[in-house]
């Protein structure tokens, strides 16, 4: 930073509005919490007043310490305008909240809102954004400077799309404009698939690009930063291992690019700079290229003129804080005026040099959705990703595969039992999440690299590297361990084999492998990511482990007692996402408040916790026993906190303790008594705590007796040590039960599976608390608006629990106190309970932070995680406790966000296994107001035309008549499927009957009705929570999802929504900062 004068900054804004990305959904996940948080930090540093709108309270950015004012409101022009006026905002940032913020910005402009209130758009101008989002404008713009795009036609009518496709000739790819994560995009290879694909594409977009298919070309992404003075750098290059045709978000990706020569790289780099300068991006953007593997031919695929999933990955891969720098640029800084955050002695005007290789792999959760097709293509379906760092591709690749936590030890040819070579070939040609293992299998079975490259389009370079791993794997012999030389051990470890994986192949315990390895002197080095490949010393401790690194780049400061290790959440997946990242960030902050040095271990590039300025030592690596033991040597710590990162660290507790690593807080033994469903059941019995009747299943022989003892079907199958109800099913028959039991034991073979009585029409209660040596010190209680049977992660939660008797609340508290005592809990814990009339039964206890901790902490004003961490570390309590959950004078509701639209063919019905991908929170003076705001923030829209009712169970049909009357009173037209219509008709309600299955020619088909646009809310209550086949009404539910019509499937919630609609007209939904609700009286 020598000789740089602080340059001239153009008129600096006073009050800046930042739009967040809202609830997490497929295609748009935690990465925007990271980019938004960085932007807020950058603005804060400049003393700019910041206002944030983000209804996702599970994020770090929505906390009280980053933005000056935070609104938990839907990201719609209606609410944003109110905030603009109220906060007297004079500038807005649109690039930090993903597609949601960008599209909201375009809408604000189109409605004249920005102009009306004189709000300046900082950073990349809206005119540029429009060009990059409109596929046709984009192609025209690039043509003007001679930069090539694929042959294509942008169309706005389905007929034109068909014509364009025929003119271009199949195969073609359909690409939706203004869309998120390739929503609606599809590769069309044969004529028969064309019309349906066109229809689907137009369901999510008004503009579709029909384009020649470049399947098989290399796909590369360049992350470019440009300042207003036209200084421009390419911060990171990313190479997709999966070639064009598979969305970058669905691809295995490496950084930096590995198969490009300098000639290739400079070609693309020059194109990137030329394009970005021409478009006039100010800040950060991502440009995607296709490169012909046989020549210098290239095409530009697209430019994202905003922070993106890839930019978060690039930031983590390089140590270059793209979002932070982009925010500074938006304020008028030039790159050379911004410090390099890692070296602190150089500037942000440079291109990082990497002395390692990074591998990213997405994680999919297809198993969670009945009926999902696990096919990968140009549309995003993954729910999370991991990033691994190594000194070779094999090391990074194998680490990344383990980080996914899908039960593999690396690139194992045996990972999946492909029945025959044909199945392997199928998995190669039609990619699914299993493709890496199909590759391994094919390589092992002698299908050469050349043939594989032909089948998959994957560059032979990567295949050769994989082949080396497979060869090493095949060379391992049982019983070989004792004979293993140091050289061979080193070779294996450098190729990314874990101790556990080696143990499995060699027939030895992980601990034995480890001993042998240590005896041979093979240990990993702790290396630093410093952005300049060691050319300059780094001031930050951003670290990873590699067996190719000799020695450690950093030395521990001070004794172990001064340091604590916090385990992060790992990969995001259904059931575990940004909420646990919030917890990890809070835990680290609390430890730092106590004067301790923190070490944070995580492997998820989408997180804030992996921002290196959050903790003292960030270790970006696998969350495993092997890593923790290595860290214990390299950065000795007093102990490890396992209760903040959700299920992943929690599951390590016992193993860590057995290996001699002190686990802080609640003892691993106590954790086990809660996680192990059988032990927990026994514990409750001994404490006299009521539970739904349950039994552990040891053999399949006396199943009928077991079911009889539980009171008959339906029963619930529940494996232990799982999150989000994985493999949990309601069985209605003997056959179902056997099937589900088999699946459950496959998922969690080391732990017991229990079967419980399924309680119908019960309320579900969520109890979150912090305890200190068994004494509860903070607590919160939420009520579910759905009946039990909808997984707590998919449920709508309300705080305070206005529907519970005081007596019920007291019972819950007594049960919690008894359990906390019995388990001597120190730290966070969570209980889930059922109540019916005055009975309260416990379903489960999680002796760790739960999904609802950020929600209750923010609503009550007590940071449960910071308090829990202080107790775990033996520190004094922190701030004054906030509100008592029963004395709140406002309401907060947390509603689930689903991503069913992306998962064609999946039944969007709620079950005991979780399927939501995110959450949104609403506040209000009434529960109704809070409910509607929460739902609006998750994509719900207020109905204005008509409602289609299809209420399965007869009882429900009657139970809904008052609500139906209310809908009519609200001026909505009622449509109903035949049975429902008859009952409502008998009640004297005007209702149009439609046909459910489209077979009765006398009635209008329900899906045709939906397509006609007459209906803007569908209430469909499936006949049962059964899953044998599909509960009826699937056609209606699926059509509602595909047509983006709000859908409710739980009777209790539907009733609440109807009354809320009546009592809270849109103008009554107030825009108010969420912190303003606390401690204030209603107006």
């Amino acid at each position, binding site marked *: 930073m020598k000789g740089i004068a602080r340059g001239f900054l153009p008129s600096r804004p006073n009050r800046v509005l930042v739009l967040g990305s809202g609830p997490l959904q497929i295609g748009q996940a935690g990465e925007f919490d990271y980019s938004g948080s960085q932007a807020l930090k950058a603005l804060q540093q400049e003393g700019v007043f910041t206002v944030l709108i983000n209804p996702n309270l599970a994020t770090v950015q929505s906390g009280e310490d980053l933005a000056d004012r935070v609104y938990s409101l839907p990201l719609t022009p209606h609410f944003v305008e109110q905030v603009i006026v109220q906060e007297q905002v004079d500038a807005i940032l649109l690039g930090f909240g993903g597609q949601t913020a960008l599209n909201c910005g375009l809408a604000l402009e189109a409605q004249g809102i920005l102009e009306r209130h004189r709000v300046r758009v900082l950073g990349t101008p809206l005119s540029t954004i429009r060009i990059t989002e409109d596929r046709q404008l984009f192609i025209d713009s690039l043509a003007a400077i001679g930069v090539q795009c694929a042959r294509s036609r942008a169309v706005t009518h389905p007929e034109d799309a068909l014509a364009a496709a025929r003119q271009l000739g199949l195969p073609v790819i359909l690409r939706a404009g203004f869309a998120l994560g390739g929503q609606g995009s599809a590769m069309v290879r044969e004529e028969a698939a064309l019309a349906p694909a066109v229809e689907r594409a137009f369901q999510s977009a008004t503009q579709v690009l029909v384009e020649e298919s470049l399947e098989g070309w290399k796909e590369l992404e360049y992350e470019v930063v440009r300042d207003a003075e036209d200084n421009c750098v390419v911060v990171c290059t990313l190479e997709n291992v999966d070639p064009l045709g598979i969305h970058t978000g669905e691809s295995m990706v490496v950084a930096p690019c590995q198969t490009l020569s300098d000639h*290739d790289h400079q070609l693309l780099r020059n194109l990137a700079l030329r394009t970005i300068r021409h478009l006039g991006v100010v800040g950060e953007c991502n440009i995607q290229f296709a490169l012909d593997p046989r020549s210098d031919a290239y095409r530009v695929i697209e430019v994202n003129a905003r922070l993106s999933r890839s930019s978060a990955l690039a930031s983590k891969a390089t140590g270059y804080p793209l979002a932070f720098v982009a925010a500074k640029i938006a304020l008028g800084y030039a790159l050379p005026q911004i410090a390099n955050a890692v070296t602190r002695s150089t500037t942000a005007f440079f291109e990082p*040099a990497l002395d*390692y290789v990074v591998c990213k792999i997405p994680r999919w959760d297809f198993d969670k959705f009945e009926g999902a097709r696990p096919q990968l293509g140009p549309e995003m379906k993954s729910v999370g990703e991991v990033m691994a760092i190594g000194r070779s591709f094999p090391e990074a690749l194998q680490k990344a595969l383990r980080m996914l936590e899908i039960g593999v030890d690396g690139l194992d040819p045996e990972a999946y039992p492909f029945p025959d070579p044909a199945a392997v070939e199928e998995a190669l040609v039609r990619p699914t999440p299993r493709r890496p293992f199909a590759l391994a299998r094919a390589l092992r079975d002698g299908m050469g690299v050349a043939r594989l490259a032909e089948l998959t389009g994957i560059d032979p370079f990567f295949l050769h590297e994989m082949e080396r791993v497979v060869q090493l794997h095949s060379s391992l012999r049982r019983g070989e361990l004792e004979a293993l030389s140091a050289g061979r051990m080193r070779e294996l470890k450098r190729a990314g084999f874990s101790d556990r994986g080696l143990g499995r192949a060699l027939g030895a315990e992980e601990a034995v492998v480890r001993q042998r390895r240590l005896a041979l002197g093979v240990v990993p080095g702790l290396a630093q990511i410093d952005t300049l490949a060691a050319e300059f010393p780094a001031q930050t401790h951003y670290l990873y482990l590699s067996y190719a690194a000799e020695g450690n780049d950093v030395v521990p400061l001070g004794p172990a007692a001064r340091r604590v290790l916090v385990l992060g959440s790992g990969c995001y997946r259904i059931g575990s996402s940004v909420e646990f990242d919030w917890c990890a960030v809070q835990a680290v902050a609390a430890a730092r408040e106590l004067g301790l040095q923190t070490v944070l271990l995580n492997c998820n590039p989408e997180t804030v916790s992996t921002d290196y300025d959050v903790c003292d030592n960030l270790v970006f690596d696998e969350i495993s026993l092997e890593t923790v033991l290595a860290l214990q040597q390299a950065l000795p710590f007093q102990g490890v906190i396992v209760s903040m990162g959700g299920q992943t660290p929690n599951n390590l507790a016992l193993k860590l303790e057995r290996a001699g690593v002190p686990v802080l807080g609640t003892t691993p033994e106590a954790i086990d008594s809660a996680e192990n469903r059988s032990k927990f059941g026994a514990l409750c019995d001994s404490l006299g705590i009521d539970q739904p009747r349950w039994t552990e299943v040891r053999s399949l022989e006396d199943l009928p007796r077991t079911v009889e003892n539980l009171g008959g079907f339906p029963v619930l199958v529940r494996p232990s040590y799982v999150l989000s109800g994985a493999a949990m099913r309601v069985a209605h028959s003997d056959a179902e039960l056997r099937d589900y039991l088999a699946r459950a034991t496959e998922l969690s073979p080391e732990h017991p599976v229990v079967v419980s009585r399924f309680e119908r029409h019960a309320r579900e209660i969520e109890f979150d608390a912090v305890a200190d040596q068994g004494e509860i010190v903070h607590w919160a209680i939420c009520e579910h608006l759905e009946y039990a049977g909808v997984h707590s992660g998919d449920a709508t939660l309300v705080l305070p629990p206005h529907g519970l008797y005081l007596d019920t609340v007291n019972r819950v508290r007594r049960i919690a106190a008894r359990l906390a005592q019995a388990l001597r809990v120190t730290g966070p814990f969570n209980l889930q309970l059922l109540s019916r009339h005055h009975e309260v039964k416990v379903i489960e206890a999680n002796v760790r932070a739960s999904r609802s901790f950020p929600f209750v902490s923010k609503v009550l004003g007590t940071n449960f995680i910071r308090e829990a961490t202080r107790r775990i570390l033996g520190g004094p309590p922190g701030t004054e406790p906030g509100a008592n959950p029963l004395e709140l004078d406002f309401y907060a509701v947390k509603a689930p966000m689903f991503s069913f639209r992306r998962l064609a063919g999946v039944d969007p019905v709620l079950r005991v296994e979780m399927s939501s991908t995110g959450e949104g929170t609403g506040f209000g003076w009434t529960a109704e107001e809070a409910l509607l705001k929460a739902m609006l923030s998750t994509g719900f829209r207020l109905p204005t035309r008509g409602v289609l009712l299809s209420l399965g169970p007869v009882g429900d049909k009657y139970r809904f008549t008052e609500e139906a009357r209310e809908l009519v009173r609200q001026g909505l037209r009622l449509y109903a499927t035949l049975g429902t219509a008859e009952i409502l008709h008998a009640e004297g309600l005007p209702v149009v009957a439609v046909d459910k299955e489209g077979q009765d020619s006398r009635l209008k088909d329900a899906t045709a009705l939906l397509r006609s646009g007459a209906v803007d809310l569908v209430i469909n209550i499936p006949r049962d929570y059964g899953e044998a086949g599909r509960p009826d009404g699937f056609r209606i539910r699926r059509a509602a999802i595909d047509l983006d019509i709000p859908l409710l499937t739980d009777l209790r919630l539907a009733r609440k929504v109807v009354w809320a609609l009546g009592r809270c007209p849109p103008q009554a939904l107030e825009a108010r900062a969420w912190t303003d609700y606390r401690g204030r009286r209603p107006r």
Partner: protein
Amino acid sequence: MNLLLSDGTCLTGESFGAQREVRGEVVFSTAMTGYVEALTDPSYRGQLLVLTQPLQGNYGVPSGPFESVRIQVQGLVVSHYSPNFSHHAAVRSLGDWLRAERVPAICGVDTRALTRRLRESGTLEGALTEGRSPQALRDAEGVPMRQVAEVVTPGEVVRLEGGSGLSLLVIDTGAKENILRALHSRGATLWRAPFHHPWERLLDRVDGVVLTNGPGDPRDLAPLVERLRAGVLARGMPVFGVCLGHQLLALAAGAETYRLPYGHRSHNQPVMDQLTRRAYLTSQNHGYAVRESSLPADLEPWFVNLNDGTNEGLRHSYRPWRSVQFHPEAASGPQDTGWLFDGFLRMVGELRQA
């Protein structure tokens, strides 16, 4: 095979190049692409090159273009070598090429740890050898660094006809081919003369002079500096210096040069144009620099390194002399400063008209 350093360090790796024992100055480059260009860059003559990006050899070796007719480095040290390359332009593997050119190389070395050591202790002598003793280091074959003449090819004057009517004398001290390509592709007729050739005779026939890059300490070329002062500067001819050429221009104009602790060798060196305040990323490979405090009046700093503040370019306030420490011809590295060639040729053209 071992990498033996003069401070006694011995790192063992696997050989993937020629079986020869060589000695040289150990330098590191943080460039992530461009091993083909780097290995043939004459500025690396006599040095053992350490690459910090661990994966090398991935895209093999093409049939050309190269930066000179042979591999120049004395030896190569990498972390992970990929024998199975993949690229449409590749004709052989990196290892095959190294063996064919009798250049030794090792992989399996932690090049990051090695780089840290070089950063901390400054550039060291080292050897690639099977031995481990100080004697082994001395026994290994080195290149006498004063004989830069060796790297200058061809050994006589070559004329490259251009179309623009401008002609330039390129005084070759170990030029990268791309400097010549950059000038020639812009239309200049080039007279490429080895620096030890009596090129003074050609000065009447050309419109300007280009001083190129090359290996070693510029002060070892004192006779050349003297000839430049008397022959070129005294006539007030347009001069453009690149890298070593920049240092030679500075010396000839009366400034000093000095040795950097571990040099600049990378693709990401940020420099700032002092006139426009614009910043550029540049490709660099040098171990010596011009001492800014020693600049004579009227020779002004043009570019400054944003990382460490060292001088990166000079311009004379009224004479047509320009020079840059970095490589505007790139190959390998970013091509963001290619406009410097345009600028120089424009200046030469204008002066000719005048």
